[in-house]
């Protein structure tokens, strides 16, 4: 497999605070990667650097191949949408700003994929949280980026909305998009992710499959990933008990 995203020795410092330190990993095409860790671990900071909201203090990010699309698509935790525009108008605006060749067909494609074609003319401000999040993710996918970063995509969704969102995301992964998502919901990572990055105090402490994390956390194959993560982090010398 070829890496579509390469993160090398990323560090981020806010004054005295070291938010990220020496983070390196590569992401291959069609991977669904969960970034997990306790509060303040640096999950959102890492994603915000990868999507280009803020620059790293050190290190590099490169995307190999794929000059035919936007580099990294992004869907923030709070939907970044215009409430006074309809679903179709939001999609069309970002399609035009992205400069896609045929905005109308991209909008139609996104409406179809999100299952919101029937609500295309509805103002986004009137949509449910789940539907708004689907539009939010769809906008991140406009321009067909090879990598999509999702920051806590299901944080404010009910189980049904969450299920439908993951169906949508999984379909994109199956189509070859690499998806990187941060989450507090470790069981969600266990259920959907093919790979887990565990951060704590700005360091990448684990990079591997959910099964490996279960193993290293002392759980069986069908065990609880959250329990395994907690145990794994507590066993690290740099992560003393009581900080989780």
């Amino acid at each position, binding site marked *: 497999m070829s890496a579509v995203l390469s993160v090398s020795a990323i560090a981020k410092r806010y004054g005295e605070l070291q938010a990220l330190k020496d983070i390196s990993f590569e992401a291959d095409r069609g991977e669904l990667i969960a970034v997990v860790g306790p509060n303040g671990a640096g999950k959102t900071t890492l994603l915000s650097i990868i999507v280009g909201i803020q620059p790293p203090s050190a290190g590099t990010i490169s995307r190999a191949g794929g*000059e035919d699309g*936007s580099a990294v698509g992004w869907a923030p935790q709070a*939907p*970044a949408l*215009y409430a*006074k525009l309809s679903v179709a108008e939001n999609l069309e605006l970002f399609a035009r700003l992205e400069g*896609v060749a045929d905005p109308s067909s991209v909008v139609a494609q996104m409406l179809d994929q999100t299952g919101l074609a029937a609500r295309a003319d509805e103002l986004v401000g009137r949509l449910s949280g789940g539907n708004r999040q689907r539009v939010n993710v769809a906008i991140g996918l406009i*321009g067909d980026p090879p990598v999509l970063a999702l920051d806590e995509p299901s944080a404010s969704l009910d189980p049904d909305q969450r299920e439908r969102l993951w169906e949508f995301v999984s379909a994109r992964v199956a189509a070859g998009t690499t998806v990187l998502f941060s989450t507090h919901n470790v069981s969600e990572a266990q259920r959907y992710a093919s790979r887990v990055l565990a951060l704590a105090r700005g360091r990448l402490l684990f990079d591997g499959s959910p099964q490996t994390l279960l193993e290293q956390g002392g759980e069986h194959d069908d065990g609880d990933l959250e329990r395994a993560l907690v145990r794994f982090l507590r066993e690290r010398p740099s992560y003393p008990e009581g900080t989780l």
Partner: protein
Amino acid sequence: MRWLLRKDLRILRRSRLLLAVLIIYPVAIALLVGLAISRSPSRPRVAIVDETPPGETLEVGSQRVPVGVYARQLFDQVQAVEVPTRAQAIAKVKSGEVLAAVVIPPGVAARVASATEAAQLEVLYNGDALEQSLVQSTLSSALANANLGFSAQIQKAAGTAIGSLLSGGNLGSIGAPENLIGLTQIPPTLEAIIARQPHGHDRVELERIDAFAGFAAQNLSLAKRVLSIVGQPIRVNSVLLHGRRTPLNTFAVVVAVSLSMMFMCVLLAAGGVALEREEHTLARLTRRPPGAAARSPHRTGRAGGELVSREQLLTEKTLLAAGCAFVLAFAMLAGISAFVALDWSRAGLWLAALAFGALAFGALGVAIGALAREVRAASLLAFLLSLPLAFLALVPGGSVSSGFYDAIGVISFVFPFKAALQALDAAVNGASPAIGLSLLHLAVLAAVFGALARVGLQQVE
């Protein structure tokens, strides 16, 4: 940028309440300020109790001045409510029906005639400190004007009496002697008699009387002139040193239009930028993802990595707000010109002043919007800043201490309201300073606030 502009116009069109408030509120404020500036204060409603006997006159030599003249002079200065008694006047003041009451006592003529003690009026009022101050200043002015008018009547009577003394003839009043000789006629008449008199004691005495009559006539003539001078010893001749004399009502138009333009422009620009933060779209628009600059030939977006650069975003918000405010301001000028005579041959200058003013206000608005994180905070900040700026710019020199006025001058200089007001005043009324200076000032302020907004947008999330 055109897609962003189109999006904002669409959002604005759908925010009908916001649009209505943005138009109606500044226009209402502007009209109120305009009315307050252009209309002189209305005459205060004052109860007047004239206790002088009907037909009472003040004797000035052989002339009589009716005391009622004073009351009539006072009636001209205030909105008079005649009441017969002091008690009724007090009741009206207490009920708030009148602002104050003036009681003209019965002995006023005797006191004026005595020339030893001044006649006194009684002024009755109540109310809070502000009302008392208003009554005092308003009534002082009204009474001073009435005094001046009454004084002119007395001077006229005195002048007529002195004229009769000098010229003689008939005094015109019933019972007065007729065909009197005037003081000026005595010397020539007496000199003719003296010439026929033999030298001796009688002739010497007549010559002394002749000399006195000549001296008296000369000095009485002087007294007549002095009387006319003491009534109004110093007259005022106003000279405008620079600029054109600006009628108050056209200046009020300029103030009203500038205020409307500022409110609409600053609020719209600040709200527009803050909305991008509030909807979390600012980061989506301005992020620079790695590898984004690499594009295939058929793609046109993300030229520099971001969907929209921060400079483009600020320019778009500034232009949108400035454009809307420009249209509103020009429509106001055109509408007002139906009621107030404005010189349409200067319309080119109006457009220049409005365009530069709107751009500077737009830049101030985006700077405010870049600092605020949500629309409500941006609107509040814009409002809280705009209102005092307008009031400070309208404080006339000399009305406050020089140090405070200097401070006001500095504040007014670093914000665009005063410069926009001066530019529009120069464009509409030909007032000074010259419009070019004000336009340059506005252009510099637009650049400075635009740069501040850019710095404010540096931190996206």
